[in-house]
């Protein structure tokens, strides 16, 4: 008993704490500042707002974590959000714009289609990155452009409105007072955490990102792992696209522009290295929350938008500077 207790305070533990919680500390400081500067910040309603506002970026960032851990990057998530959002919406709309014959279909079909669209995009990117060794940046930049074009072609450049209430529920519904997207984020995050920390597949991802050569020599199918992470990222982007459509009530062709930047930012703020092999999914969640809290808090305080942009830039950098462990880096 006493042995376990003393162990808790070893240097190792301390360092792990700093690593795991350094950015968490930054998050707490930010939240503390906001709650003293604005009376509404800590109200249950606003906390629910922040979580809701974090949900879509959170889902994207979770997928992005898988990709970045292997040393890759996925710039296409924003466009995939739009494509999956509009295709799935066309199965769940009562309007005639871009509707699939027989629409609206049951929500489960629309959802399956949305995820399938994401998975298809991810499979294509993954194939090109892993089998053809094209740099991930170029591949997913290509997908960013192509998926956006397909979105515009699919909907003829127009939004798909009038989504069925069942479909909209995934964006606007509540379970026990908790917004549905928050629950979805929680499930996605939980599964990702479990996969990355508790399963073999998760270990393979770290191994591939840490040293692909050594991973290959150890009998790990590096090509397959690299392929799968893009499928995961784009599949989650598909899910996020449906959340977005369901929340806004209509699938917009210009949805999700520049979402990749926020998603990557959440991952990197959360302490994952862009060169792969190092990082934690909990960090990603905190990174996404920092971004969400910042956007919410600055709006709450009524800070003028131009100044908000300056402040946001400073806060992002400041949060990461607070996170001590980075100074371990070369």
């Amino acid at each position, binding site marked *: 008993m006493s042995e376990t207790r003393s162990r808790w305070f070893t240097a190792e533990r301390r360092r792990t704490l700093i690593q795991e919680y350094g950015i968490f500390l930054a998050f707490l400081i930010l939240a503390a500042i906001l709650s003293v500067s604005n009376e*509404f910040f800590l109200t249950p309603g*606003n906390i629910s*707002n922040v979580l809701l506002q974090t949900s879509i970026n959170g889902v994207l960032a979770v997928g992005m974590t898988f990709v970045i851990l292997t040393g890759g990057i996925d710039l296409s998530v924003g466009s995939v959000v739009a494509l999956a959002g509009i295709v799935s919406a066309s199965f769940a709309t009562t309007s005639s714009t871009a509707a699939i014959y027989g629409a609206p279909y049951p929500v489960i079909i629309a959802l399956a289609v949305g995820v399938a669209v994401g998975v298809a995009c991810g499979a294509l990117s993954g194939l090109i990155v892993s089998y053809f060794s094209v740099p991930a940046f170029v591949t997913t930049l290509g997908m960013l452009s192509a998926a956006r074009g397909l979105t515009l072609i699919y909907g003829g450049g127009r939004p798909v*409105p009038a989504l069925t209430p069942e479909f909209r529920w995934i964006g606007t519904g509540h379970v026990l007072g908790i917004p549905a997207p928050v629950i979805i984020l929680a499930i996605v995050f939980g599964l990702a955490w479990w996969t990355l920390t508790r399963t073999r597949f998760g270990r393979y991802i770290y191994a591939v990102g840490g040293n692909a050569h050594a991973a290959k020599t150890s009998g790990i199918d590096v090509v397959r792992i690299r392929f799968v992470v893009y499928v995961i990222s784009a599949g989650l982007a598909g899910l996020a696209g449906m959340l977005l459509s369901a929340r806004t009530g209509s699938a917009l062709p210009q949805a999700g522009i520049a979402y990749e930047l926020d998603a990557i930012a959440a991952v990197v703020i959360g302490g994952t290295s862009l060169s792969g092999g190092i990082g934690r999914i909990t960090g990603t969640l905190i990174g996404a929350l920092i971004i969400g809290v910042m956007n*919410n808090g600055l709006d*709450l305080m009524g800070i*003028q*938008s131009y100044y*908000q942009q300056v402040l946001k830039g400073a806060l992002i950098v400041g949060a990461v500077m607070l996170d001590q462990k980075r100074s371990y880096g070369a």
Partner: protein
Amino acid sequence: TKLKIGAAPYGLNAEFMQIWSAALQQHPAVKNGDVELTVFDGRYDALVQNDQFKTMVTQKFDAIIFVPIDIDAGATGVQTAHDAGIPVIGSNTRVNSDLLSAYVGSDDRISGYMEAKIVLDKIGCKGNVVIIEGPIGQSAQIQRLEGNKKALAECPNVKVLEDQTANWSRAEAQKLMENWLTAHPGQIQGVIGQNDEMALGAIEAIKAAGNDVKSYAIAGIDGITDGLRAAKAGEMTSILQDATAQAQGAMDLAIFYAKKGDYKPESEIWTKYGKDMPWNDGKDKEYNVPWTPVTAENVDALLATRK
């Protein structure tokens, strides 16, 4: 007590919305302190706007002035505010919702028709034109294009050589026009730009190619400052969209609904437009701010308001 009114424009990075939000700040009720105004930058994202509605509800605003990025996606935000008992006034861009208390804007179909007509008249209803469009799918783009097409239908001898989006951006339109001038040497007579920025980009491209801008018929919409200057120089025609009237009219209506009808409008715009846009005791659901073609007579006065 002070009224808390929130304004939610889709984005503040371009000049038109900047003029719009500056006009809100200039509203008498804001200047004399009756109204505490907060402007939320929608960052060109429907979801961000949605979230900002939630924020305003949390903070118990008394009324909201709304310029949605998208006609359908905006409805969710309006619903959120309505559920919390907060009146929402639309401005500039429509939203598909019966829950809007009122709307102050200008009909983009009309401006689209007007600008195309001006270009077509100038080229004598024959020849070749190009259309530079806004971001595909945005209601202004859709409606201005409808207007453009209506005018084009009246001139069956006019051929649309090219029709492409430049996303409201001057730099993008400039590149587009440079390439079109190469692909159709000496064939383009008219440029229909769905906003001034893009028309200005086309002008720069024409100049750079060493052509005489004045030999082209070029039109844009909005009446941004650079557009007014170019109009004054005779390089293009602009259709002024009165951002001030749209903003201040919406503000008057917002106060009117926040005070449950116990309010007389304070902005000058109602006297300015008079019977073209009557107040009607705030009863109307829709107020249409007229479009004003920029002419040699009014351009100096308009420029003076911009400083």
